């Protein structure tokens, strides 16, 4: 028990003094997850908007598939990217395996379906309200997409935050494609897994504290955005 208490005190100390090892891991984690959100958003948001407004055969099947992919296990996403990027894989010549870039790709694959599915839900509800009026103005579904993305900006920001939360908390995908190389591809989640198994609880706990704070902060930000949108947009 005293060991645990001691570990916890040390962990708080590591965070409070911004220990370089801890800070390096935290910053890399943030960089990787933010980049993954950006990449996934470029694909996911327009895809969600198109699915919200377009009507085509097989649309329901695409939505079901997308919703299913929201639950894609991180290790499977990691495995897919690993196969693609490994030496003998189709993209092996790029030499990306076990680099931060590979981790960004894996996390983007993981959260793009989440962004697409959630933004589809948000924007489809908006489109149902807007469709008739926009058509009266002479704007068809395609012209409506930028309108919906702009008018849904606050809701979409919370969607992005959900994607960021998922990316920063997952361990399986980055472990497989990043390799957990110290100082290069070691993120908060993979470091926690490793240090815990090694018995270095203070470092694992310190990173756990930071991770919890980030998740808490992201959720507070999402709530604040919802409130701000309610105040300013009605």
């Amino acid at each position, binding site marked *: 028990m005293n060991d645990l208490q001691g570990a916890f005190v040390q962990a708080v100390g590591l965070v409070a003094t911004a220990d370089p090892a801890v800070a390096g891991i935290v910053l890399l984690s943030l960089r990787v997850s933010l980049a993954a959100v950006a990449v996934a958003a470029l694909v996911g948001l327009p895809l969600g908007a198109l699915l919200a407004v377009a009507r085509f055969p097989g649309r329901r099947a695409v939505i079901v598939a997308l919703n299913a992919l929201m639950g894609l296990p991180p290790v499977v996403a990691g495995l897919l990217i690993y196969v693609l990027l490994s030496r003998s894989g189709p993209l092996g010549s790029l030499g990306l395996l076990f680099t931060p870039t590979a981790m960004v790709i894996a996390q983007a694959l993981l959260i793009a379906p989440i962004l697409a599915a959630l933004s589809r839900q948000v924007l489809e509800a908006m489109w149902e*309200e807007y469709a*008739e009026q926009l058509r*009266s*103005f002479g704007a068809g579904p395609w012209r409506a997409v930028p309108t919906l993305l702009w008018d849904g900006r606050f809701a979409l920001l919370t969607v992005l935050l959900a994607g960021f939360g998922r990316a920063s908390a997952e361990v399986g995908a980055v472990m497989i494609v990043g390799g957990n190389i110290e100082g290069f591809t070691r993120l908060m989640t993979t470091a926690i897994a490793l240090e815990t198994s090694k018995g270095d609880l203070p470092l694992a706990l310190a990173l756990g504290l930071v991770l919890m704070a980030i998740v808490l902060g992201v959720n507070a930000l999402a709530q604040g955005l919802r409130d701000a949108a309610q105040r*300013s*947009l*009605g």
Partner: protein
Amino acid sequence: MRAPDAILPLRAEGLGFTANGVAILQDVTLALEAGPPTLVIGPNGAGKSVLLRLLHGLLPPSAGRVTWEGPARHPGRHQAMVFQRPVLLRRSVLANCRYPLALAGLPAAEQARRAAEALALVGLAALADRPARRLSGGEQQRLALARAAALRPEVLFLDEPCASLDPTATAAVEAIIATLAGRGCKIVMTTHDLAQARRLAGDIVFLHRGRLQAQASAARFFDHPPSAEAAAFLRGALLW
């Protein structure tokens, strides 16, 4: 002698609309000319809103056709519609007013000029920077009217624009409608409020059970109801 961008007269021939096997509107033939407002009246479920949507092109007719007989090449650009529940964008009052003008490809200066003018017309100039969806119900409907008016449509369709408004807001909306009509904008409007129809109408289109029962000048329609159904409706005895 018609302006080269006129779209009226409007002719509907044998217009029908069927949804899920139920005939909402059948065999409606009518013509609308430039002039004072046309009020579409009739009991609930008579097909008033569907008729407006067919004429405006929001719904494809199941039968018959709608023809704009004026010389304008793009009739859709010279008409606008305001709905019972105003659909306002999640933007400022001014941005709402400018949105359709930007869609129409007007230069920015012209957008700003027309939007300011339209907001002044409906008395919302002072609220230009407010979020549109935080306005009161009456203000929202006035904004919807301003947004449509800024397009300077030749024909403006209004679907029960006062249905959910209190008497004060209704009076304000009616005053705006009268102003627009006075400027030569053809108003085509549904209402369930007979007193309102009497106040605004130049002529009346009376629908009952999805069929056109009568089209007549307001004076004739109210003084000499052209059919037993019309007389019953005016007495308040025809409810659906």
